[in-house]
């Protein structure tokens, strides 16, 4: 009795210690990060200050007139480019040109804070809060790009100071261009990609995140009613347990995770089994079998899904067959009209096998063909049987290589839209839920909320939560995987 009591006590104290350690480590890490950030900022200003005073007169002037350092050293084109960028930036910021009745530039920064003040009337327009938010983000993007160019201008001028001090020749514009195709080729190649990411991914993402902090919804259509910043109110609404969205959030989230788990692992395991089967020495016509399964990838997924939906419908061929052979007396409802939620859920997971297995099969086939034969020979010499060889060589090899695929596949299934939307449209409906059906995933629900209901703010909150979920899950799973820890093993 006493022993058990002591054991329990030591267990509790061990747990407490572990928790304390965790928080201690966490706090230390946060402290170090903050320290790094603060030190970094201070260092940056100190360096900037020191560099300014050490710099030549042209470089000092470059702090105010961009490109002066280059122009003074006969780098006319480069200098003019910097100068035009500065003039263009100042022009846009000061004059705030109007696009779609909404200014961009300096005024956009004010609008970014107010999200519009003019309420308009029947004959006059209302400030478009949505465009103001968007242009505010774009203006901040322009400012960021300008500052990047500004510091590049200073760096370039200071570099010329050093070149001149060392008695070297100042590079001409032609030489700079040639350099971009030679030693700085990486910059040439990466620039379009970075511009693309910033324009088409980063800025829209920031815009989307910001919408989560506004009341931009069906009651506040852009250009008709002003909307405003509401802080974390939308996040609170999701978790307050009062609103319909709040009530449906956890069930949808749970089903999303269940779906992602089964959709990923069922395809993964079945794909591996299929690949092992096809790669068996005794199987004839391997290429034919592989081709058959690859054909399912070649057919657009939405066509396959709509075909399957039609096949499984109440008056489709499967039900006809079941009724003809007398297995059922009335049509079985498999999908959106299913009387049982479980039936619909199992059906979509099973259908997902059809579109998901070939990818795993194809990849695993490639892996199986590349397992070093000497490993098996060595195992045979050591007396391993086939099962042992499979469990200790084949499987670890497959799992090691496919772990990143498994993770991306899991994340992909969390955000899988086509399968649910085309097969069930989120149905069967649930009592009490007004848009999220029982097979709706976060992403299909998000689609309905934004596209059908114009509840952009709530949709944005769900999108952010989905992102946090997938990003965190991916990072943790990947960092814990052997593929990450033993990255060098297969190189």
């Amino acid at each position, binding site marked *: 009795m006493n022993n058990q009591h002591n054991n329990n006590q030591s267990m509790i104290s061990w747990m407490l210690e572990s928790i304390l350690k965790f928080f201690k480590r966490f706090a230390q890490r946060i402290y170090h990060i903050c320290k790094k950030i603060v030190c970094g900022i201070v260092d940056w200003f100190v360096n900037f200050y020191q560099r300014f005073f050490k710099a030549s007169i042209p470089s000092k002037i470059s702090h105010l007139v961009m490109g002066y350092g280059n122009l003074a050293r006969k780098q006319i084109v480069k200098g003019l480019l910097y100068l035009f960028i500065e003039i263009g930036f100042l022009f846009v910021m000061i004059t705030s040109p109007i696009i*779609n*009745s909404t200014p961009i530039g300096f005024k956009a920064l004010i609008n970014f804070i107010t999200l519009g003040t003019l*309420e*308009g*009337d*029947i*004959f*006059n*327009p*209302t400030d478009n809060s949505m465009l103001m938010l968007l242009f505010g983000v774009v203006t901040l993007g322009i400012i960021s790009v300008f500052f990047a160019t500004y510091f590049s201008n200073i760096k370039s001028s200071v570099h010329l100071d050093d070149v001149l001090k060392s008695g070297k020749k100042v590079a001409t514009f032609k030489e700079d261009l040639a350099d971009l195709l030679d030693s700085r080729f990486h910059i040439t190649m990466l620039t379009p990609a970075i511009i693309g990411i910033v324009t088409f991914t980063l800025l829209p993402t920031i815009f989307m995140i910001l919408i989560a902090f506004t009341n931009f919804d*069906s*009651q*506040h*259509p*852009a*250009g*008709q*009613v*002003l909307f405003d910043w509401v802080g974390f109110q939308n996040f609170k609404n999701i978790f307050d347990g009062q609103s*319909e969205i709040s009530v449906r959030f956890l069930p949808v989230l749970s089903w999303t995770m269940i779906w992602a788990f089964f959709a990923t692992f069922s395809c993964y395991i079945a794909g591996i089994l299929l690949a092992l089967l096809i790669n068996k020495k005794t199987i004839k016509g391997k290429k034919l079998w592989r081709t058959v399964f690859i054909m399912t990838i070649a057919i657009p997924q939405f066509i396959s899904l709509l075909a399957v*939906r*039609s096949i*499984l*419908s*109440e*008056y*489709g061929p499967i039900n006809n067959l079941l009724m003809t052979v007398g297995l059922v007396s009335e*049509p079985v*409802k*498999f*999908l*959106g*009209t299913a*009387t049982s939620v479980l039936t619909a859920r199992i059906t979509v997971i099973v259908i997902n096998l059809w579109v998901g297995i070939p990818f795993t099969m194809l990849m695993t086939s490639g892996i199986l063909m590349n397992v070093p034969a000497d490993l098996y020979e060595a195992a045979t010499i050591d007396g391993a049987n086939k099962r042992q060889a499979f469990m200790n060589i084949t499987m670890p090899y497959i799992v090691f290589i496919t772990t990143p695929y498994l993770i991306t596949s899991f994340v992909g299934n969390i955000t899988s839209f086509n399968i649910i939307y085309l097969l069930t449209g989120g149905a069967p*409906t649930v*009592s*009490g*839920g*007004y*848009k999220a059906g029982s097979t709706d995933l976060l992403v299909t629900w998000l689609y309905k909320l934004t596209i*059908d*209901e*114009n509840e952009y703010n709530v949709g944005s909150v769900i999108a952010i939560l989905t992102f946090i979920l997938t990003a965190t899950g991916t990072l943790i799973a990947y960092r814990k995987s052997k593929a990450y820890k033993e990255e060098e093993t297969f190189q």
Partner: protein
Amino acid sequence: MKNKLLILLVVFASIVLLTGCSKSDPLTIWVGAESEEFYVEQMATYVANYITENGEDFPYDISVKGVDTGTAAATFLEDSEAGADIFTVAHDNLGKLITGSSSIAPITDTALLAQIQADNPQTFLNVIKGNVGGTEYTFGVPYIAQSLVLYYNKQFINEIQVRTWEGILAVAKTANKQALSLTGTDGFNNSFLLLARNAVTKESSLRLYQDGLIMNNYATGDDTLSVLKWGQRFFSDENGAKRPTDSGWQVELKNEESLSVISGAWHFNAAQAALGSNLGIAVLPTFTITAEDVYGDFTAGTVMQSGTFADAKMFVMKKNSDKADYLQDILTYLSSKEMQEASYDAVANLPAYKNASTEFASMSGTSIEAQLATAQILMFENGIPQPFGFDNKFNFYYYSKGGPELILEILENDGNRFNTDASILAQMLIVENIWRTGNQA
């Protein structure tokens, strides 16, 4: 070098010249997808007339584009700047379009206002107006009328049987088919029951945003609840009505699994494709409340007429269009009686003007299109326009906050959850609350 400069100069001058000479962006008109070709021709005629009357070119090119009218308003609301100068919407979208400071412009032309007032029935006049900033304006010009009708299989159901749901159900039982398929589960599809009225007195206690007031809803009268109880029997009968299956109502009609479907002119082509020459079109049937269905003090044996939402499609104008000076004249032209009649002849759009059925000879024929027109006009007597144009909340609360699903739960009565009068009343009280506040509680 000089040559190069000269070429550059010529190219630049050509671009400037071309830009200067070309007309500015076109005047855009969005119409229903099925009517695009018709309105392209009519607008070409309009431009030709303009040139004859004014002795000069119409200042803009005119671009007519066919759109899904159901989503035209939504598309316009997402980006009104990119929207059309004139576009077509169902009248119940008015609330969304005039929220706040409105994204569409009111009609101000006195001649057009007079034409609207003179040509349209009062039911439509009531729903094309909206209140912005305390003043009432007319925003839309009705040009197409639509209501629900019954598409049925003439091979099974004759003209007598189609008059009552009981008659259709009896046929369905004999043939072991489904009496009725719905095309959807939304609030439009349950309107044949919810809006049902006494077939003799034409009265119903139902109130739906009456007088444009958000609190003025009532769906718990004895007649409404008796109708729902009748509907429950109809839906729970194995040969009765049912929600749409994954196969789709077209397949059900075509395969003769189902004998009829309730829908509007927008599904006419699909119904015809499914049934071919067996397609029959009729007014929605009546049904009789039995003692089993009676709720409260309602009288058994009362014959009820299935109801409908009576829709008007209307043209509206973009607010602050730079072509505003020309839009109202075009609207006058597009919504004239003659144009509505031509539209009926060309693409079977039911004219919206009052007395069209008596004044317009083409509608009294025996063609299937004429049957469709006649059935719709007769249904107008048993319908109300969707009263959602006054405020964008109305449409949202009625369709999107779960009310239709709760009504369907009563009708389907899964697990016998709605076997008692009290449970039906409780559920309908929730529905009423959703209509008023958007919330169940």
